């Protein structure tokens, strides 16, 4: 019991700090880059751009995060591009996240319906103004609940970066196990730490869902 308090929990909590930092950093990249991609995708006439964005999204959404991270961390190192653990984690999860949020935003835009665009045209707004003042604010509002869900998922996915040596919760858990062999206690505690961290986030998502309506098809 003392061991738990003096060694295990501090170790896991140190890892938790990294978990949170990586989550926040990746989240920022994901929601901004994803939004940019979604907005660009609203212009249907530039076919090449549309294809490129679609390809980006499908590429990142149909390959496991672990695979992407290994490419970034181990693969690029072999051709001279060395990215260390935490940056690799943030870039990897951020790029994948942008693909996910892009789909979320696009669902948001889709949910608005053509009437909004027509009303904007009727008052003489340009396409850019329409997107800026009419569509985006509403699309973002609709997108908030699924984005909240994504954030929750992202926090769980940071556990994967332990595999590329990023010092987050699972990484600490594994190293403590090798020295103390208290597997049950350590891994249960790790699960508990994640669970506790997830509760406020899950609560926030529920509030978002109440305020901004149900889930879109992400």
């Amino acid at each position, binding site marked *: 019991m003392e061991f738990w308090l003096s060694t295990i929990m501090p170790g896991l909590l140190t890892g938790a700090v990294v978990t949170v930092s990586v989550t926040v950093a990746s989240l920022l990249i994901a929601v901004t880059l994803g939004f940019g991609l979604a907005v660009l995708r609203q212009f249907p006439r530039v076919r090449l751009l549309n294809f490129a964005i679609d390809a980006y999204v*499908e*590429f990142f*959404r*149909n*390959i*496991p*995060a*672990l*695979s*992407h991270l*290994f*490419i970034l961390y*181990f*693969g*690029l*190192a*072999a*051709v001279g591009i060395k990215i260390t653990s935490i940056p690799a984690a943030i870039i990897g999860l951020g790029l994948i996240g942008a693909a996910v949020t892009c789909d979320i935003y696009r669902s948001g835009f889709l949910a608005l319906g053509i009437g909004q665009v027509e009303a904007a045209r009727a008052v003489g707004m340009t396409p850019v103004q329409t997107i800026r003042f009419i569509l985006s604010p509403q699309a973002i509002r609709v997108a908030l609940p699924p984005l909240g869900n994504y954030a*929750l998922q992202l926090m*769980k*996915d*940071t*556990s*994967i970066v*332990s*595999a590329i040596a990023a010092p987050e*919760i*699972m990484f600490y*858990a*594994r190293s403590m*196990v090798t020295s103390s062999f*208290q*597997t*049950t*206690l*350590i*891994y*249960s505690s*790790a*699960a508990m730490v*994640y*669970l*506790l*961290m*997830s*509760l406020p986030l*899950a609560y926030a998502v529920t509030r978002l869902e109440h305020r901004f309506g149900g889930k879109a*098809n992400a």
Partner: protein
Amino acid sequence: MLEFLDVYARHADQWGPRLADAAVVSARISILGFMLAAVLGLILGLAQEARSRIVRTVVRGYIVFFRGVPVLAILFLIYFGLPGVGIVFDAEPAAVVGLGLAFAAQMAEVFRAGLGAIPKGQWEAAMSAGFRPAQTLLLIILPQVVRIIAAPVIVTFVALLKDSSLASLITVNELVLEGRALATEYFLPLHIYIWVGAMYFLIAFPLSMLAKYLAKRARGARA
């Protein structure tokens, strides 16, 4: 660029068979894990409508737990953690059980949403005609639910397939682990991991497209 592709040409016959065998393992744990998730998810989804408050709370607790704990932590807990209290799983079964339990929570949500999308009038018409509750569920409600949840079910399977890669971290010899082994043998991690990624893509992408198509059809038929 050609040099890059040339590497594949030279090693294809060495890497190909090994990665193919590993892919079979990935597929196996994914399918078995998904079957567990679907069955358990259906039970949980239906149990959320149970009359007993205890049952509903237990189900709620299950879903909250698996919504908040990462799949990787679950896998580690089952494979490395449980032996400490005497429950020992082999790597593959641990992966199947872990994936199944974790994704059951997601499937429960899918089933719940599907059931909720059926208008109350459908139940009422069936009950007025004299169908018993079990008959109503089987003949009237479930056929409609299947149509609605087809797309989300496929999406959940793709997610499970991707998370099956985590089994490599508990020593299951699936695609990613085989990729790592090859990478250390041949010192060509970039090429190998790209190939591994491509193999996942080849399975996941068609499924994702199928799900999108089904979703579009489901939305259209809602008129």
